[in-house]
């Protein structure tokens, strides 16, 4: 029987920090650059073990969510260490427990590779974002380069059983959900991207 998203990420929380050690050091600067654009009340979707909290501006007003209780548990420890105004909520991005137009900024980091129904999740983000609010995303997507795309498609058959899909069209999904794309930047090849959109 396939694992649910919550079960997958509960399991992955055990090795998550180890497996992202190198990535954190390579892409941390790019994340800091993107996170500097956070303004006002912010929703951080899928906080994970809290690895990215250290890249946030010190004065941010943040609610961080995750679907995995074990991830949240680890993130709480790091949030306490980082200080700042951070509140953790255990919830699913596909059914957010926040009212319409609650946030000025929504931030996602390697999230929309794992959400079972990405469009539904993006519609929820659209709902909770204020008019003119900003969606900031640091995500990996399917490459447009043939051999890379073929390989990512192949790998997705394996990776989706225990973690993320590697071949999603997240930029396309953002547009489909009704957001207006403001900026798209390649961070690694055309696979890891910093995406900025507005409602």
């Amino acid at each position: 029987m396939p694992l649910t998203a919550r079960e997958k990420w509960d399991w992955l929380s055990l090795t998550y920090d180890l497996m992202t050690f190198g990535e954190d050091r390579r892409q941390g600067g790019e994340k800091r650059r993107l996170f500097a654009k956070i303004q006002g009340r912010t929703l951080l979707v899928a906080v994970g073990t809290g690895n990215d909290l250290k890249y946030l501006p010190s004065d941010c007003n943040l609610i961080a969510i995750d679907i995995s209780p074990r991830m949240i548990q680890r993130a709480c420890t790091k949030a306490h260490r980082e200080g700042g105004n951070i509140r953790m909520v255990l919830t699913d991005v596909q059914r957010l427990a926040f009212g319409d137009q609650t946030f000025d900024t929504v931030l996602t980091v390697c999230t929309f590779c794992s959400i079972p129904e990405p469009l539904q999740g993006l519609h929820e983000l659209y709902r909770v974002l204020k008019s003119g609010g900003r969606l900031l995303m640091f995500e990996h997507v399917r490459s447009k380069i043939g051999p890379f795309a073929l390989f990512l498609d192949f790998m997705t058959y394996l990776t989706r059983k225990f973690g993320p899909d590697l071949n999603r069209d997240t930029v396309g999904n953002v547009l489909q959900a009704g957001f207006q794309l403001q900026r798209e930047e390649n961070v690694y090849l055309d696979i890891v991207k910093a995406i900025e959109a507005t409602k």
Partner: protein
Amino acid sequence: MTSRSQSMERSTRMTEPLYFCMGDYLAGLFTGLLTAFAVRAIVGPQWDMVVAMLVGMAVGMLLHLTLLLLFIPLLGTFEVMMPSGIIGMYGGMLFGMRDAMQQDVISLSQALAVGGLFGFVVVFVIRWSDRQLRGVVFAKPDSHPAC
């Protein structure tokens, strides 16, 4: 459209430590060597070329998946997965076909050298491609520049 050069100047990845660059090449070299060795050990000289190609690809992918666990924590997920996967998948196919056709005329050391070289070249091409692709691909004129 924001100019790509402006964005690249600001990208922190342009100044990544030498450790990562050396790590990428060493990981690629090792993956290529190991793939060539494993395919050579399994594929026989009289195999049908199509079967040899498919078996080579399977062996290469299995090795790639195993090596991911070793290299990803050190070098980063996609920075390892892309070269390693290309070496395992496409290299495994090529080495499989080569070993089915030329195993009698190509020595093991030559096969390993080609494997290592293939790994090195794949890493070079992917790092070069990354430099070409990195940066802003779309920016509305009124959007804020990179901070």
